């Protein structure tokens, strides 16, 4: 097929977080996207969640900006209530038939006023609240839904099932949006690639009334609990016993319901996320009700992700949550009031029962049948665990060319992995369709800014309740009343969620109608939401910089929860400060600079090579910097992936591809020494192999500097022969060295250097690695005795299969804890490992030929220098700290710099490759632009005050200021400073140094800061309405 036949559009099937991310990345990279969603609104599972681990961010709050972005992107067409029927054609040129079910509501007309719902007589269980509340037959999926358009439940509606019997909604609809004659439509769409992101469905314990679910009201699923804890949920976030609304004193979380279970269901795999989600829910309960006794009954606590183990330790030590390794086998009623009794065998093997008020079933993930059918229709292969069959080396490519897969469809995974997968799939589709980039997208139309005078403030204040996050603590009505009394404020409004898509339109509408030209959003943090509201201002035709946020959530309601009055007083101050500051704000116009469409990738391991190839194949020249003398990084020591694919062969192919690709320049034995510039145009110096300095100009940077391996100083490593680290063992094993070949007994010790006080994190890949080695040893010689001494086996996801295989083969797993590690001594016939038998609870000795230590993955110590150079944060464990643990897993707050692989956190190969592709996707979105706007927050000179003293010139860290000749008003020759806006970073150090107020940072001028100080310190004057009321009351 000739390249020109590629179609510049992509279909993304599934509107959850993974699909949304794929859609956004593709649209940003120059492709038109059809986002196909089965239900009436996009968002997937995330909107249902209360908070997200391990930061306990409010789930709705972080997903809302992404929903809005998808909703308003001109190159994303969201098709709700739609299903893919079939696919024809080949990669680059598919024709997809899509069936769109009737909504019975005209989306163009519906204004989402909700009058229809009020009059609708039909009530059905609300699946969004997991059946714990009812909704009407005409409804929206959830309050922040995108698109925010009502829909009619065809099965429940009486009018649709018997015309003439109701029609109440149509009668009250002020927009004439109800259309009972709506019929299903079929669309035939041409796309170059397809991304499958159908997500998961939660395991349904109701089928067999597992563990009393469905029989006893106080047995709930983890998703139901999520809704109960959510402030927008059925109980407004208050946890009581569902049976009688009495206080909950004792809670039991039962893990692995519908996962790691071949008996009750056929789900052999681990669902990966339930341990963390249970701990998160337990912590939220503890925060709400500190006296609650919470126990988590688990098989292994699988907290393998970044900062997860810290969260686990905190839950144990600070929140006093109990963890018991036991499988609960029965839940029965204890009394008639609702108290339950759970039965389990404790670690001594004795049968124990406990009475509890609430049982939470941590339900696992499954692929819905509809997704399996769709995959089969498309010819996409499925694994025995019913997930998309993918190679570790191409972790988002399905078995069918041109069809990609991401999210939980590729195996159970959490939000960041799904986001990474979405971006990675976008990178692959983008690479395949490069020749058709920008062929079907709309050129961004710059909004026409109003000609009206923007100088005299007409301020609008919007106060967000954030569900109950703000409104539960702060008296929002008082804040609203008060805001009305502030100077320049002509309009005040309140929103349940200011960030919801309909509120963006609403705010824009108010701006136009009330002719507002200054906006204060009293809500959460500008760090996360300022960009969103800026775009809203732009869409309303006023300068986007005329908005200020008052952070009354993160810095008020959340941190003063027990002092509502003082918190409200603080909110009044914060709003007043924002109103005072924004009044002095001037419209700003950023400067654009052309993008250098080249990338610099630091680190030539698999992550770096993967990102380099992807970008180069998209036509962007890449400089790949590697400090050693060959490419490959840590993967050079790897043998096979978890599903048995050969790494050395793959690595060789990858190296060849790199050297065959003209657009990649490999710089071996080179290091980065300096860097300046910003997203779109960096200038980075490298020291090459010959010791020469070379300057590279590039638009984006990807950091793939990898990790280091831990050299153990415990277990006699380096002192006792035959105690080896796993990587060394692999080499010995590969060459069938004598000690391995003749060995009859092997002991693997897990968590060597990981999960201890010094490094409280899990190295993620070692459990799988040891089990694989053990299986191979056993396969070679079944009579070998093999022991794995572990603290927690973390074969998450579909890796569980090899854990089961190992146990079936007779490999012995023995648990030990951090306080009582095994001891190794030299015996007459080899080594003796002394540990404690965790079942019999007595010391045991194992005679063995070899001990293999699963040693930790460490952060690369050189990250520190790069972090300094590019101004990036590092985590406490020394890994690069991404911009947001959930939704921005490869980005930093510094634009144009991305991270992937072990530099971010220990992970197995396929996760590194995914992340590298995701980083490439983010870089593509930047490099595909012709120009980028520089931040408008830069320094300006005030000629009325600057006397050319030049103090600022020395203070400026970027040499952005120089002294020039200047004619004073009286005609005499003088000096004045001049600022280069392309060099200025807006730090304002000049402003802090200037003795004459001759230089200012737009957005943070001296006067604006002063206004904030004054506003913060002025006494709160009673607002006029109250004064009036008081006067009336007291005569």
């Amino acid at each position, binding site marked *: 097929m000739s390249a020109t036949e590629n179609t510049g559009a992509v279909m993304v099937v599934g509107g959850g977080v993974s699909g949304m991310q794929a859609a956004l990345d593709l649209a940003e990279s120059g492709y038109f996207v059809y986002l196909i969603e089965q239900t009436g609104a996009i968002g997937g599972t995330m909107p249902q969640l209360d908070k997200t681990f391990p*930061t*306990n*961010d409010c789930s709705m709050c972080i997903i809302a900006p992404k929903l809005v972005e998808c909703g308003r992107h001109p190159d994303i067409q969201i098709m709700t209530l739609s299903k893919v029927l079939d696919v024809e054609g080949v990669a680059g040129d598919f024709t997809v038939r899509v069936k769109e079910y009737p909504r019975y509501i005209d989306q163009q007309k519906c204004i989402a006023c909700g009058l229809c719902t009020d009059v609708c007589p039909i009530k059905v269980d609300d699946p969004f609240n997991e059946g714990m509340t009812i909704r009407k037959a005409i409804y929206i999926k959830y309050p922040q839904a995108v698109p925010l358009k009502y829909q009619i439940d065809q099965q429940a509606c009486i009018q649709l099932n018997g015309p003439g019997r109701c029609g109440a909604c149509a009668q009250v609809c002020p927009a004439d949006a109800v259309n009972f004659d709506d019929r299903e439509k079929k669309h035939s769409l041409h796309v170059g690639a397809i991304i499958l992101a159908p997500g998961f469905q939660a395991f349904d314990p109701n089928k067999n009334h597992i563990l009393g679910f469905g029989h006893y009201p106080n047995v709930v699923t983890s998703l139901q609990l999520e809704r109960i804890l959510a402030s927008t949920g059925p109980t407004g976030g208050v946890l009581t016993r569902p049976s009688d609304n009495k206080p909950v004193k004792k809670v039991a979380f039962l893990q692995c319901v519908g996962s790691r279970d071949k008996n009750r269901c056929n789900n052999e795999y681990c669902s990966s996320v339930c341990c963390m989600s249970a701990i998160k829910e337990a912590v939220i309960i503890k*925060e709400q009700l500190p006296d609650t006794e919470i126990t988590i009954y688990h098989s292994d606590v699988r907290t393998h992700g970044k900062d997860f183990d810290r969260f686990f330790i905190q839950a144990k030590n600070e929140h006093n949550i109990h963890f018991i390794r036991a499988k609960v086998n029965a839940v029965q009623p204890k009394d008639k009031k609702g108290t339950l009794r759970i039965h389990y065998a404790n670690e001594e093997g004795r049968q124990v029962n406990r009475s509890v008020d609430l049982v939470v079933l941590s339900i696992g993930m499954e692929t819905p049948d509809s997704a399996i059918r769709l995959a089969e229709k498309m010819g996409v292969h499925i694994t025995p665990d019913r997930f998309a069959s993918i190679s570790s080396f191409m972790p988002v490519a399905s078995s069918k060319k041109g069809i990609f897969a991401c999210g939980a469809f590729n195996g159970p995974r959490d939000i960041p992995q799904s986001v990474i997968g979405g971006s990675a799939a976008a990178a692959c589709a983008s690479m395949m369709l490069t020749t058709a980039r920008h062929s079907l997208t709309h050129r961004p139309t710059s909004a026409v800014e109003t000609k009206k005078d923007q100088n005299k403030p007409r301020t609008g204040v919007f106060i967000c309740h954030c569900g109950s996050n703000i409104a539960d603590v702060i008296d929002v009505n008082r804040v609203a009343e008060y805001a009305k009394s502030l100077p320049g404020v002509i309009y005040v409004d309140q929103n349940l969620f200011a960030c919801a898509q309909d509120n963006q339109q609403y705010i824009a509408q108010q701006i136009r109608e009330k002719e507002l030209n200054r906006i204060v959003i009293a809500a959460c*943090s*500008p*760090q*996360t939401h300022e960009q969103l509201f800026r775009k809203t201002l732009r869409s309303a035709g006023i300068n986007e910089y005329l908005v200020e946020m008052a*952070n009354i*959530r*993160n*810095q008020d309601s*959340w*941190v*003063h*929860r*027990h*002092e509502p009055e*003082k*918190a409200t*007083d*603080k909110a009044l*101050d*914060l709003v007043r*400060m924002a109103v005072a500051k924004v009044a002095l704000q001037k419209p700003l116009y950023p400067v654009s600079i052309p993008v250098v469409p080249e990338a610099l990738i630091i680190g030539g391991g698999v992550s770096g090579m993967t990102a380099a190839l992807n970008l180069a194949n998209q036509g962007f020249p890449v400089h790949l910097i590697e400090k050693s003398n060959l490419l490959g990084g840590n993967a050079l020591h790897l043998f096979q992936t978890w599903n048995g694919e050969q790494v050395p062969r793959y690595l060789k192919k990858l190296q060849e591809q790199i050297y065959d690709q003209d657009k990649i320049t490999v710089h071996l034995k080179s290091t980065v020494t300096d860097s300046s510039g910003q997203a779109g145009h960096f200038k980075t110096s490298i020291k090459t192999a010959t010791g020469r300095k070379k300057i590279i100009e590039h638009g984006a940077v990807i950091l793939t500097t990898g990790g280091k391996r831990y050299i153990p100083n415990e277990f006699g490593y380096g002192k006792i022969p035959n105690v080896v680290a796993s990587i060394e063992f692999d080499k010995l094993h590969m060459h069938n060295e004598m000690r391995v070949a003749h060995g009859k007994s092997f002991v693997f010790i897990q968590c060597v250097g990981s999960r201890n006080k010094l490094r409280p994190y899990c190295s993620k890949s070692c459990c799988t690695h040891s089990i694989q080695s053990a299986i191979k040893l056993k396969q070679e010689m079944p009579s070998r005795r093999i022991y794995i001494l572990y603290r927690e086996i973390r074969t998450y996801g579909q890796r569980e299969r090899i854990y089961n295989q190992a146990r079936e083969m007779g490999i012995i797993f023995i648990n030990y804890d951090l306080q009582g590690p095994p001891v190794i001594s030299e015996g007459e016939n080899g080594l003796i490992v002394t540990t404690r038998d965790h079942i019999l609870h007595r010391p045991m000795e194992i005679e063995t030929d070899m001990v293999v230590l699963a040693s930790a993955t460490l952060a690369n110590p050189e990250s520190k220098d790069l972090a*300094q150079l590019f*101004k990036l*944060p590092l*985590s*406490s464990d020394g890994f690069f*700290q991404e911009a947001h643990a959930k939704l921005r897993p490869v980005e930093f*707050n510094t634009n144009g710099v991305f991270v992937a692989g072990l530099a971010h956190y220990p992970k197995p190969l396929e996760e590194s490759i995914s992340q590298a592709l995701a980083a490439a996707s983010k870089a593509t979105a930047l490099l595909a632009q012709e120009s980028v706007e520089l931040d408008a*927050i830069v320094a300006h000179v005030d000629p009325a005050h600057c006397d050319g003293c030049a103090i600022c010139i020395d*203070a400026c*860290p*970027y040499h952005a200021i120089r002294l020039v000749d200047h004619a004073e008003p009286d005609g005499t020759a003088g000096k004045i400073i001049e600022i280069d806006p392309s060099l200025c*970073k*807006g*730090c*304002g*150090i000049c*402003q*802090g*140094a*200037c003795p004459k107020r001759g230089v200012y*940072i737009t957005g*943070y001028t*001296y006067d604006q*800061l*002063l206004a*904030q*100080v*004054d506003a*913060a*310190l002025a006494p709160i004057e009673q607002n006029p309405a109250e004064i009036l009321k008081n006067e009336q009351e007291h005569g």
Partner: protein
Amino acid sequence: MDSDVKIIAFCCNWCSYAAADLAGISRIQYPCSVRIIRVMCSGMVHPDMILHALNQGADGVMLIGCHLGECHYQDGNYKALARMEILEEILADLGYQKEQLQTTWLSANEPNMLVDAVYDMNERLLELKGTVGK
């Protein structure tokens, strides 16, 4: 209320403002007395601004920036530190006490340090206010 103090805290955008947000996300509770003003860099805060805040009745002023050596703008916090040291020296001459000023360095993932600093300052100012009042 008499027992209340008011603290103005200048927080740099990159470390301390982010840490204050994280304190919220982590629900770490701290005294209501602090009013955070977001600045791009601690080096942006002019010493006049700090004196102005005290003059307008702030019980205390905090300047919170990135750890020394980790400034997002290379060395803005060193410049801030130099100014704060001079300010502290002349504070008494201007009729204020050195307890009314506090400089803190922390990183974006250290909300506890920020909270501890606010607690410290709050306590100190309450004490100060008590003695001054008597």
